[in-house]
């Protein structure tokens, strides 16, 4: 009671201005207790207290914010923004030397060279990019992305519907994520060896890896890519599935919907944001496939280090040309960037009508 009274008295001494700010009077006299209550304010009366959020408290620290951001901004400028501009610049230069930074003028020829429309300055036709890199990359993209996404979706739905061993099975399906891409690629090349377990089980005599036909070698490569890309998708889908309201399924049960109908009419539409995210990221990832080829074939193709680069991907081509033909590598990188950009934009355009947020 006493406390409350005191509080009330103190409130009386706060004068509220017309603009809503409060000004505390400096001293008050408490008659009951015969003491002077001194309210000390460091601020001058001209600057009334403003009771607002944190934003204004920190507003003075403008220069401090830039101090905190300093290291990141420097690093982003040096290793992200500048390289982007510089790569586009290099793509339009003739014969760029990375060590000295010299080049022989500007040209559009690099794009013509990699697309095998024009010969290089030395009169050589550069045919690997169009013959191997582009078809291989597109094949990988359009085979692995739909298969792995569909498979991951089915596995996630199945995982979500079971009760026992759910966590253990979930962990098992996550294992391929926690591996070294090169190491497992080497294991796959043992599995698909001429005398390997696959030929043994299926009683076939197919050369899959070393000395194989490019189309045959695509099968273990795509299987490996699907195997290694599934865990992340399952993880994302599962977290999406666990967020779906159970009521939808109860309603479907009352209407006695078939399981297939529930999957396509309820689960997939409600999971569409996750599906879009997975499709966008895995299309980008599949366009940049590289380490799987190195792991599986130990080189650009089935014929070993110095053979025809018949398993080469676009990124493989970029790294191949990086040191000696930097201009061509940059042109190929810009090419890849434009393709990825177009694909991502296309997906977002298509998704506008299909994705339900």
């Amino acid at each position: 009671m006493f406390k409350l009274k005191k509080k009330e008295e103190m409130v009386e001494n706060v004068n509220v201005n017309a603009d809503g700010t409060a000004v505390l009077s400096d001293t008050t006299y408490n008659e009951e207790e015969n003491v002077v209550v001194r309210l000390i304010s460091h601020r001058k009366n001209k600057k009334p207290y403003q009771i607002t959020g944190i934003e204004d408290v920190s507003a003075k620290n403008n220069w401090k914010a830039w101090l905190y951001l300093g290291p990141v901004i420097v690093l982003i400028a040096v290793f992200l923004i500048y390289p982007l501009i510089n790569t586009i610049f290099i793509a339009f230069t003739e014969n760029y030397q990375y060590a000295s930074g010299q080049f022989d003028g500007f040209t559009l020829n690099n794009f013509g060279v990699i697309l095998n429309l024009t010969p290089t300055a030395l009169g050589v036709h550069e045919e690997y990019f169009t013959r191997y890199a582009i078809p291989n990359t597109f094949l990988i993209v359009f085979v692995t992305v739909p298969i792995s996404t569909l498979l991951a979706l089915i596995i996630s739905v199945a995982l979500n519907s079971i009760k026992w061993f759910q966590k253990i099975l979930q962990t098992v399906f996550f294992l391929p994520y926690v591996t070294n891409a090169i190491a497992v690629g080497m294991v796959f090349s043992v599995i698909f060896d001429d005398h390997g377990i696959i030929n043994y089980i299926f009683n076939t005599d197919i050369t899959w890896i070393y000395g194989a036909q490019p189309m045959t070698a695509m099968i273990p490569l795509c299987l490996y890519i699907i195997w290694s890309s599934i865990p992340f998708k399952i993880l994302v889908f599962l977290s999406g599935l666990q967020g779906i309201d159970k009521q939808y399924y109860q309603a479907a049960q009352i209407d006695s919907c078939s399981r297939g109908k529930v999957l396509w009419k309820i689960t997939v539409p409600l999971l569409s944001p996750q599906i879009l995210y997975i499709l966008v990221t895995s299309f980008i990832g599949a366009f940049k496939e590289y380490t799987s080829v190195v792991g599986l074939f130990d080189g650009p193709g089935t014929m070993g280090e110095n053979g025809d680069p018949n398993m080469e991907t676009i990124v493989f081509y970029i790294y191949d040309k990086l040191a000696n033909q930097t201009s061509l590598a940059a042109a190929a990188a810009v090419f890849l960037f434009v393709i990825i950009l177009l694909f991502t934009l296309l997906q977002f355009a298509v998704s506008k009508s299909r994705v339900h947020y």
Partner: protein
Amino acid sequence: MEKNNSSNKKINKPVNSSPYPIFAPDVDSIVISIEEAGRTVDSIKRQEKVTHIISTILTYIFIVALALVVIFPFYWMIITSLKQNSEITNVNQTFFPTIVMWSNYVYVFQVFDFVTFMGNTIVVAIFSTIGTLLTTIFAAFAFARLKFKGRESLFLVFLMTMMIPGEMMVISNYVTVASFGWIGEGQTLIEAYAAMIVPFWISVFYIYLLRQNFKQIPNELYLAAKVDGKSDWSFLWRVMVPLAMPTLISITILKFMGTWNSYVWPNLVTQEESFRLISNGLRSSSFVDVDSGQTEYGYQTAATMLVTVPLFLLFVFFRKYIMRGVGRAGIKG
């Protein structure tokens, strides 16, 4: 059955005693359809239960079969690493080694300089992780707590850089690092480390992740710290960093895994074999037998085991952080 049917009919027959008509003209036909099927509620329930059990069993068969396919490469890695080469290349494949060859591992330690590569990888992982954590914490703090002109637009620029494929950067970063004098003839170990570490001190995605986490910390804590006369600096380290620890652990582990798996960049920027990281060492080491000229798959797989096991141990101990981090991040490294 018959009895059941008739009783069912009685129960379901609507009795319209009220003066108002029931707006359900099809009720009669529904009753008839149940009768026609010759099924009672009990039998439908029983059938549903059977279907449920069958579908559960099928689901388990499907899942377990796929799980076996998924772990098969790991199983094959383990047993191949313990087999003799003659057994590996034999026409008749065995699912368990007839003679367990631990000597494969002994040999691998002689051919594959595991300790050097492992040491390089750990040094690079530690320093790139520390750098990334520091820049990420500072930037996330500024974006989440401090107000300054152009905060939102700068953050948008940051987010936009995430869409650029890394390959675009590699070419110019190679040129940049070369101009720092970190690559080229006479490269020292320190220069090689710097070339492998410094370009990876930023991750826009982790900044985004941590900023979201920092934003969840209530304003009241910040104001309370201000009242206690704490500076922004000590608030960051005393309150925000401890509260965001799970996210920071996730970032640390994913960064470690990223370094463990990085192949392209170390391969490009290092001059000498002994400066490289574990993935490079694995692919460039020769497991060809000197006498026969054949690839010794046993040695090769033993080496892949050595590279895989540490990652697995990391996974066993930090499963929660890894899966949560990946679930939100979804990018290696």
